[in-house]
C-alpha cells in the first residue's frame, strides 16, 4: 500500500510538471498565426504510418537510419511495458496486461529484446558523437549546450534500457528461484539472470525492485526533461508528421491578406472601408509571434539531426544559411519572447527580433528554395516556409531586398519579365522556323480553340540559349501534330521569381493577369517548358482561382513515347554517355523523376547517374530567384559544386530540363574549361536531334 502511495505521488508530480510545461507551450501556440486547416485525416494517417512509424525518410541515410529505426520501433514496443508498469504501480498488481495471453508474451519478449537492441544502438550513437567527428553535428548553431543535451538524452536512454534489462533479469531470476509463474517471455532477461547462478530469490527480488523503481522514475524524469530538450522530438515527431503540410513541396502558401490588397489595386473602384480598416498587423515573419502554429510545431519537433543542413546547397558551399539554425533560432526566440508577450501584452517589444538578432538577411537570401532540406527532414519539417515568409516580411514591410532583385521586381512590373526585354519581342524565338507557331489570339479570332496552350516562359522567349530549346520543342510538337498555340506577346512572367524573392504582391499581380488571359482564351490544358512556370501554374494558381491541367513537356513526350506515337530514332545518341541533372522544381517539388530518364532511355544513350540524383539531387544554385542575383559569400558557387559532380560521372552530355539549370551548368562547364568536350543539352533538344528535326 505504501508502495502504491509513493508511486501515485510520483506519478502525480510527473503529470503535474508535465501539465505545467504543456500549458506553457499551449500559451505560446496561442500567440501564433493560422497555417492551414487540418483536413484529409485519412491521408494524414497514411503519411504518419509511412513516415513516422515506417521511418521511411530516416532510411535516406541508410546505415545510421537503420539504427534509428530500431530505436524508434523499440520505443514503441517498450512503451507498452511502461504503461503496464504504471497500471501495476497504481494498482499494486503484477503484469496487469497478462490477460492478453500470447500477445502479452510476444510484446514482453519483443520489448526485452528491443531493450538490448536500443541499448546497443544508443551506445553506438553516443560513441559516434563522443569520439568521431560527424560534420552534420557541427555548425554555428551547435553550441556546447546542443552537444551536452544530445549526450544527456542518450545517457538517459542508456540508463532506461539498462534498468529495463536488469528489471527483466531480476523478474525472471526471482521467478525461477521461487518457482512462481512468469507472466510474459523475457529471453534476454533470462539470459542475464542465468549469469548469476548462485543468486538467491531475495537478491533477485531486490534487483528487480531497484531496477523497477529506477526504470519508472527515469521514465518520469525523462518525460519532463524532454520538453526542455532537443529530444522533445520523442513526443512531437509523430504529431508533427501527422500535421504535415500536404501540398507539393514546391508550392508556396498564398497570402490572402495580399490577395485582398491586389484585387483592390487591380479594380480600384470605391475603397471599401471594411477592407482597409483591417490590414494585417504584419506581412510575413519578423519575429516569433508572426510564425504559424506549424512553423512553431516544426521548431519544437526538431532534434537537431542536421540532415537538412547537410544537404543544403548554400551550406555545402560555405554560405551562412543553415536550415537547422533557422528552425533552432525560431524555437529559442519563441522561448525568449513568448513569456514577455504573455506578461506584457502582444504589442510588447524587447528591442530584439528573430530577424536580424537571430537570423540575418544574408542567411535568408542564400536559400535557393530547392527544398532539399524539407525533403530530407525525417519528420517533415518545412524550413523554406519560414525562410520565405521572412523574405516576405523584408520585401512587403521594409521594401528591402538585394539590389539585383529590386531590378527584377521593376522589370517584371514594367515589362513582364525578370530581364529587361520588351514584351513586343516575346515571339522572336519563333522567327525563321520552317513553320508558323500558332498564336492564341489569331486562332481565337478565327473561331478556333487549340487543345493545348504552350507556355514558353521568359527564358524560352528571351534567353538566347533557351530559345533553342523552345524551338526544338515546337518542332517536336509539330512533328506529333499536336494542336497547340502560344500566347506570344500576351504571355508575361508567372511571378515565380517575385514570389520566391518575397514580393507576394507582384506575384499576385502577375498571377491574376495571367489567369485572366488564360481564362479569356478558355484555356484548360497547358504544356510548360520551364519547371518554375510549371510549378507556379500547376500548384499555386489554384489558390487564386486559376484551375488548369498543367503538364510538363517531358511528361507529355514520355506519354507519347509510351503510346507509341513518338518513335525516337536511337542512332543519334546510341551508346553516348549522358548524365541527367534533376531540376528541383521538377523533381523534389513535383516528383517528376522517371519521365526524363525514360525518355533518355528511349534514346538508347548510356545514362550515368550522379551520386546525388533524383530526390537527393543537388540544386544548380539558381532557384528561388538566385538566378538573378550574386550568390552570398561562401567557399564556392553552387553551380560549380554541381557541375563538378556532373563532370565526375565522365558523361559526354549533361542533360537538363530547366532554363536556369541550363544557364548554371553551361556556366559551370565553361568555368571548368570543358566546353570543348562536354555538352549541356536539354532533353527536348536531344529528342529533336534524334528525330532528325
Amino acid at each position, binding site marked *: 500500500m505504501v508502495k502504491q502511495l509513493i508511486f501515485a505521488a510520483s506519478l502525480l508530480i510527473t503529470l503535474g510538471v508535465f501539465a505545467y510545461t504543456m500549458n506553457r507551450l499551449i500559451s505560446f501556440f496561442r500567440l501564433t498565426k493560422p497555417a492551414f486547416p487540418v483536413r484529409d485525416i485519412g491521408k494524414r494517417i497514411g503519411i504518419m504510418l509511412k513516415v513516422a512509424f515506417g521511418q521511411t525518410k530516416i532510411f535516406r541515410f541508410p546505415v545510421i537510419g537503420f539504427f534509428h529505426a530500431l530505436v524508434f520501433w523499440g520505443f514503441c514496443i517498450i512503451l507498452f511495458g511502461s504503461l503496464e508498469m504504471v497500471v501495476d504501480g497504481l494498482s499494486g498488481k503484477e503484469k496487469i496486461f497478462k490477460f492478453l495471453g500470447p500477445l502479452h508474451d510476444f510484446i514482453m519478449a519483443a520489448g526485452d529484446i528491443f531493450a538490448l537492441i536500443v541499448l546497443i544502438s544508443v551506445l553506438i550513437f553516443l560513441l559516434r558523437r563522443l569520439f568521431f567527428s560527424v560534420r552534420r553535428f557541427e555548425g554555428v548553431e551547435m553550441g556546447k549546450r546542443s552537444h551536452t543535451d544530445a549526450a544527456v538524452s542518450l545517457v538517459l536512454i542508456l540508463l532506461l534500457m539498462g534498468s529495463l534489462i536488469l528489471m527483466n533479469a531480476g523478474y525472471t531470476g526471482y521467478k525461477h528461484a521461487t518457482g512462481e509463474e512468469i507472466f510474459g517471455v523475457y529471453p534476454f532477461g533470462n539470459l542475464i539472470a542465468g549469469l548469476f547462478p548462485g543468486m538467491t530469490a531475495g537478491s533477485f527480488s531486490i534487483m528487480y525492485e531497484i531496477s523497477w523503481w529506477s526504470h519508472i522514475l527515469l521514465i518520469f524524469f525523462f518525460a519532463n526533461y524532454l520538453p526542455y530538450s532537443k529530444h522533445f522530438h520523442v513526443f512531437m515527431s509523430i504529431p508533427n508528421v501527422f500535421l504535415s503540410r500536404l501540398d507539393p513541396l514546391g508550392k508556396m502558401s498564398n497570402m490572402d491578406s495580399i490577395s485582398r490588397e491586389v484585387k483592390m489595386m487591380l479594380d480600384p473602384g470605391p475603397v471599401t472601408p471594411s477592407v482597409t480598416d483591417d490590414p494585417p498587423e504584419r506581412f510575413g515573419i519578423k519575429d516569433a509571434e508572426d510564425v504559424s502554429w506549424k512553423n512553431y510545431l516544426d521548431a519544437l519537433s526538431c532534434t537537431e539531426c542536421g540532415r537538412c543542413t547537410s544537404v543544403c546547397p548554400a551550406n555545402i558551399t560555405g554560405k551562412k544559411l543553415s536550415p537547422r539554425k533557422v528552425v533552432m533560432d525560431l524555437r529559442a526566440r519563441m522561448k525568449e519572447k513568448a513569456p514577455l508577450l504573455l506578461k506584457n501584452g502582444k504589442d510588447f517589444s524587447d528591442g530584439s527580433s528573430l530577424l536580424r538578432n537571430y537570423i540575418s538577411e544574408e542567411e535568408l537570401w542564400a536559400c535557393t528554395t530547392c527544398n532539399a532540406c524539407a525533403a530530407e527532414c525525417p519528420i517533415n519539417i518545412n524550413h523554406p516556409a519560414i525562410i520565405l515568409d521572412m523574405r516576405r516580411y523584408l520585401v512587403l514591410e*521594409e521594401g528591402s531586398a538585394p539590389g539585383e532583385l529590386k531590378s527584377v521586381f521593376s522589370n517584371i512590373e514594367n515589362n513582364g519579365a525578370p530581364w529587361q526585354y520588351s514584351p513586343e519581342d516575346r515571339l522572336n524565338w519563333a522567327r525563321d522556323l520552317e513553320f508558323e507557331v500558332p498564336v492564341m489570339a489569331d486562332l481565337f479570332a478565327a473561331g478556333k480553340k487549340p487543345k493545348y496552350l504552350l507556355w514558353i516562359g521568359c527564358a524560352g522567349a528571351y534567353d538566347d540559349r533557351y530559345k533553342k530549346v523552345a524551338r526544338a520543342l515546337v518542332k517536336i510538337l509539330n512533328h506529333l501534330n499536336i494542336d497547340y498555340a502560344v500566347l506570344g506577346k500576351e504571355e508575361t512572367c508567372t511571378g515565380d521569381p517575385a514570389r520566391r524573392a518575397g514580393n*507576394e504582391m507582384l506575384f499576385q499581380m502577375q498571377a491574376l493577369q495571367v489567369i485572366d488571359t488564360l481564362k479569356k482564351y478558355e484555356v484548360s490544358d497547358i504544356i510548360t517548358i520551364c519547371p518554375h512556370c510549371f510549378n507556379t501554374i500547376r500548384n499555386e494558381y489554384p489558390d487564386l482561382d486559376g484551375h488548369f491541367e498543367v503538364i510538363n513537356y517531358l511528361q507529355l513526350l514520355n506519354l507519347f513515347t509510351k503510346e507509341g506515337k513518338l518513335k525516337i530514332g536511337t542512332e543519334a545518341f546510341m551508346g553516348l554517355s549522358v548524365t541527367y541533372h534533376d531540376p528541383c522544381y521538377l523533381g523534389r517539388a513535383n516528383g517528376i523523376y522517371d519521365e526524363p530518364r525514360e525518355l533518355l532511355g528511349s534514346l538508347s544513350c548510356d545514362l550515368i547517374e550522379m551520386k546525388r540524383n533524383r530526390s537527393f539531387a543537388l540544386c544548380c544554385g539558381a532557384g528561388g530567384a538566385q538566378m538573378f542575383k550574386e550568390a552570398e559569400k561562401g567557399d564556392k558557387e553552387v553551380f560549380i559544386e554541381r557541375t563538378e559532380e556532373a563532370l565526375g560521372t565522365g558523361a559526354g552530355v549533361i542533360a537538363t530540363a530547366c532554363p536556369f539549370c541550363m544557364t548554371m551548368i553551361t556556366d559551370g562547364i565553361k568555368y571548368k574549361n570543358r566546353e570543348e568536350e562536354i555538352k549541356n543539352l536539354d532533353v527536348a533538344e536531344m529528342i529533336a536531334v534524334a528525330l532528325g528535326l
Partner: protein
Amino acid sequence: MKILVCISNVPDTTTKIKFSEGDSSIDTTGVQWVINPWDELSLTRALELKDDPSSGIKSVTVAHVGPVSSEPTIRKALAIGADDAIRVNAGAADAYFVAAQLAELVKKEQFDIIMCGIESSDHNGSEVGAMIAEFLNIPSVSAVSGITPENGIPVITREIDGGREKVTVPAPFVIIVQKGIAKEPRIASMRGIMTARTKPIKVVEPVAGESLTQIISLEKPAPRSACKFIDADNPAQLIELLKNEAKVI
C-alpha cells in the same frame, strides 16, 4: 527642411517607341509608364536623407507636370515613400514650360532643396533643373552624385573630370542629380502601397507660361544590321567586306 523631388513620367525603357501625328509625337497606346529612372534615384536619396535624423529633412514632396493619366506614376512615388505630391494639371509641353510651373510651386510652397534628375529618359532634354533655378534666381548644382548632411549642412558632391568636388550652396537650391546619387532605386513595400492610397495628391492649375519648343519630327536610329561572321581562316574576305561593303578601309 523640405525637399521637392521633381518627377517625370516616361515610357518604360523596354518600350518599342512608335510615332504618331506625322512623326512629331510618341504614340502612347500600350505604353507602360514609369518614373524617370534618374528621378527615381533622386527620390530614393531624398527619402534616405529624411530617414537620417541628422539631415534635418522633415518632408519629401514629389511634383509632376502632367495630365490626370500620370497619377499612377505619382502614386508609385508616394508608395515608395514620398509624403505628399503636387500635380500641375497640364501637359508637359516643353522644358521651359515645365520649369516655369515647377518654379512657381517652389515659390509658393517654400522648398529648401529641389532635386531634379539630370534628364528624362524619353526626350533627354537636361534642361528643367537649371531653368527652375534661373526662374527663381537661386543656386543650381549640376552633375551631382551625392548629398550628405555634415554638421547640419547638406554637402553636395559633384562629378568633375577625373575626380570629385564637394560644394555647399545657400538654400534654397536646385541639385541636378545623376547616377550614384543613390545605390539603387528604393522599391515600394506593400505597406507603402497601402498608405499611398490615402496620401494627398494636390492638383494645381498651371500658371500662364509659354512653351518655346516645337517638335518638327522624331526619328529612330537605323536598325542595327545583322552581324556577319567570317571564318578565321579567311582574312581576305574580311578585307574585301571592310573595303567594299562597310567602306571603312
